[in-house]
């Protein structure tokens, strides 16, 4: 039987998890759970995903896409502000789907996300194969999205899954998935707040848990607020320091890498340095000291911005902060001490952080996948739709049909009629959002009700039925009540792909499967080579290297250095055999050195020194 998995398709990192004997587990590849959500296109057309693509942010920034989740289901007008710091170009018709231009090709955000999903699918399949499973295919998945994602963003995520060759069992909300993973139903019944600050999005969900039912009372958030924004503030601070110089893509990427490291350091340390090594784009390099206090002053407005959605969600649930029994932190950005402090202050309690905030969402997604497949009924998620659904009426005013925070699935209906005699078609504009005017809401779709029997104006009674399914995705049906003639509806998604486009992309991805398989083997070879290079470089930097050199054979270090540089030279080669061979040579050359260093560590440890000191 083929496998089902849960996938957290993140802005910065993505993960895949599965359930074994009722217990969810993240699938790792050499201890690494995270697949960076980065896609890069090689000079020869090879698609790189994950760590390898992340490395190429520095070497080939204009061929590399990151944080594509921010563009899912959005239009060019929504993201113009983001474009300035991006190394890739974004385009597309106003009011249509975004086109990302890299390496002379154009991709839609779902296609880029599909590359990440395929990588996760592959990782899981390799894992099941290694477990000795006869049928290791992964063909079905639950994929998570921010709770505050609108219909277009959810649909784009589902399309990405389909393009990647996955049957998307369910789209579920990240905070809800996290609460499932925490198994809060077993320890508590009560009211839970899940605060989820990820790489690009912020969500707050308030849930009530009782008898194994996780009922979301309200949700709110900002789909454009997260770790990326913190990184951008730091990048801009550094760019301001290096006043005057232009800021090419390469420079921004080396700065981004340096400030992200500093940000991570400041979660533990009180101060750290931001260090950019000299390079052609920055000949003098860059260095500055930054304290946690300085960092907190810089990001304080961003953290404050999360508080308005939290208050709104509490208000919508009819609760006060003191009514919350448990608070749960999700998302890598909740490692920032200031964020933890603010959440603890608001709810007056220490939030849960027992589970890895990067992994908890994927674990919950795997649990949900297991529930769907097994029919287990101990737990049930009852989620809500984050935004009101409405239609544009006369004068451009929104008429709400399904209110925000309605439990899904939810349905609603609206009656339409004609304005002139013998009118046979009516235009309908579906929008999502809380604002009064349709132009201030998100346009979801426009469609035409056709085939209305010719009647005097105002006589036809056309019932349009809106159905939001358990994925939070909308479908529309209509009929004329006087004649019970069913109406044909051609829905044109405003910021999405048409059914035909998704089909075509799926076919293309099958056509490329063979080429992709070759490319995959090449990437595997490069990844293996990369890890051997990193391990070797680490050994060569070992502080005790001079001491152990005496134990090495004459010329041994030199042989290692030659093998290392040989391998580095063929890294960009397209013949994987060559890479394999040079990797093997380097591996062989370093075997003795590794043993010597290991023995020395053991001796040191026995002599009473702590291993971690070595």
């Amino acid at each position, binding site marked *: 039987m083929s496998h089902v998995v849960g996938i957290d398709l993140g802005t910065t990192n993505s993960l895949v998890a599965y359930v074994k004997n009722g217990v969810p587990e993240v699938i790792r590849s050499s201890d690494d759970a995270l697949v960076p959500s980065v896609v890069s296109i090689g000079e020869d057309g090879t698609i790189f995903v994950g760590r390898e693509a992340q490395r190429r942010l520095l070497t080939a920034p204009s061929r590399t896409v990151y944080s594509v989740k921010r563009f899912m289901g959005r239009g060019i007008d929504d993201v113009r502000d983001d474009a300035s710091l991006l190394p890739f170009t974004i385009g597309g018709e106003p009011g249509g789907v975004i086109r990302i231009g890299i390496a002379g090709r154009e991709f839609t955000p779902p296609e880029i996300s599909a590359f990440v999903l395929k990588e996760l699918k592959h990782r899981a399949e390799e894992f099941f194969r290694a477990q000795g499973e006869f049928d290791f295919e992964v063909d079905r998945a639950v994929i998570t999205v921010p709770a505050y994602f609108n219909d277009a963003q959810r649909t784009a995520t589902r399309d990405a899954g389909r393009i990647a060759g996955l049957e998307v069992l369910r789209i579920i909300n990240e905070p809800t998935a996290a609460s499932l993973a925490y198994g809060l139903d077993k320890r508590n019944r009560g009211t839970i707040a899940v605060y989820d600050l990820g790489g690009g999005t912020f969500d707050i969900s308030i849930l009530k848990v009782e008898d194994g039912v996780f009922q979301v009372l309200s949700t709110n958030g900002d789909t454009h607020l997260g770790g990326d924004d913190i990184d951008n503030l730091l990048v801009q601070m550094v760019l301001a320091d290096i006043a005057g110089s232009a800021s090419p893509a390469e420079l921004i990427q080396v700065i981004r890498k340096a400030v992200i490291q500093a940000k991570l350091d400041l979660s533990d340390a009180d101060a750290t340095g931001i260090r950019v090594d000299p390079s052609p784009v920055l000949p003098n390099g860059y260095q500055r000291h930054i304290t946690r206090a300085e960092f907190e002053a810089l990001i304080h407005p961003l953290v404050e911005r999360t508080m308005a959605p939290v208050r709104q969600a509490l208000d919508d649930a009819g609760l006060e902060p003191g009514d919350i029994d448990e608070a749960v932190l999700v998302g890598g950005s909740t490692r920032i001490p200031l964020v933890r402090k603010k959440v603890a202050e608001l709810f007056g309690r220490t939030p849960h952080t027992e589970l890895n905030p990067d992994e908890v969402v994927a674990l919950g997604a795997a649990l949900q996948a297991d529930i769907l497949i097994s029919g287990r009924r101990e737990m049930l998620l009852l989620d809500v739709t984050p935004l009101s659904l409405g239609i544009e009426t006369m004068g451009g005013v929104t008429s709400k049909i399904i209110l925000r925070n309605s439990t899904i699935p939810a349905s609603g209906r609206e009656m339409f009629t004609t304005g002139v005699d013998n009118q046979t078609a009516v235009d309908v504009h579906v929008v999502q959002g809380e604002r009064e005017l349709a132009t201030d809401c998100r346009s979801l779709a426009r469609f035409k009700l056709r085939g209305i029997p010719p009647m005097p104006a105002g006589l036809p009674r056309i019932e349009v039925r809106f159905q939001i399914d358990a994925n939070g995705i909308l479908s529309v*049906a209509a009929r004329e009540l006087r004649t019970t003639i069913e109406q044909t509806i051609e829905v044109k*998604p405003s910021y999405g792909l048409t059914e035909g486009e998704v089909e075509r992309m799926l076919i293309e991805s099958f056509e490329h499967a063979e080429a992709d398989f070759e490319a995959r083997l090449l990437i595997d070879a490069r990844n293996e080579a990369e890890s051997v290079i990193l391990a070797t470089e680490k050994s060569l930097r070992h502080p005790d290297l001079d001491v152990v050199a005496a134990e090495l054979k004459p010329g041994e270090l030199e042989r290692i250095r030659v093998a290392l540089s040989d391998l580095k030279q063929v890294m960009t080669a397209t013949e994987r055999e060559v890479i394999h061979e040079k990797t093997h040579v380097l591996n062989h050359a370093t075997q003795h050195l590794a043993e010597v260093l290991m023995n020395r560590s053991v001796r040191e440890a026995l002599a009473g020194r702590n291993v971690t000191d070595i």
Partner: protein
Amino acid sequence: MTDPIPVRADSAPECRTCGAGAPVDEHFCPNCSRILALGRHGDYFTFLGLPRKLTLSAADLERRFRELSRKFHPDYFYNASPAERLASLERSSYLNDAYRTLRHPVSRIEHLLAIEGMPAAKSETEGAKVPPSLLEEVFALNEELDEIREQRESGVDPTALHARLEVARDPIDRKREEHETRLNELATRWDSQEQASPQDRRATLEALRERLLERNYINNLLATIDREVESLSALRLADAGSGSGDVQ
């Protein structure tokens, strides 16, 4: 948006799986025990197994909602036939609508009026008419509001005007409390009228409907005051001259 659900047939109370007939308010087929299509369904009260009464226990309602959710939810029909999946989707949606409607006292009354064949208490023409019980307050409030707006435009200190608004709000707040009490009394009367004559029951429904129109009117008045408070607050902020801390 890509998978429009089939429009359901209006006239089929029978089971789509085994073809047997089933009572309108059964959730599962008595013959083959499969989930039934929504078809011709009863009202929200009967759907949840409740009597058609306005007083109900929130805890009991919630328990019924959870129990039925566990029976209908699409999560549990993933491997079922398309007909059952559609039935699960429709029945869950209906359950969610029913729970949301009955949870709040006012929407509960609105639903009762609808299923008892009363016109909706939202009619634009009626909504614009001042309910007789409010004539005096509305007249006083409108005068006061006109004056406050005039003074605001001619630059009178917003803080002082703010205090006047609070005073103007008081009688409306009192009316609102009075209204709540009367609405509750009517709800209790309805619940005790099971055996009463159709005329008496009809009279209670008429009175409930009057109350809802009055309620809409009071809420609109309060919203008008809130809007005025907001424009004053905006003025005070502008006066303080501080730039907003908004980073968006």
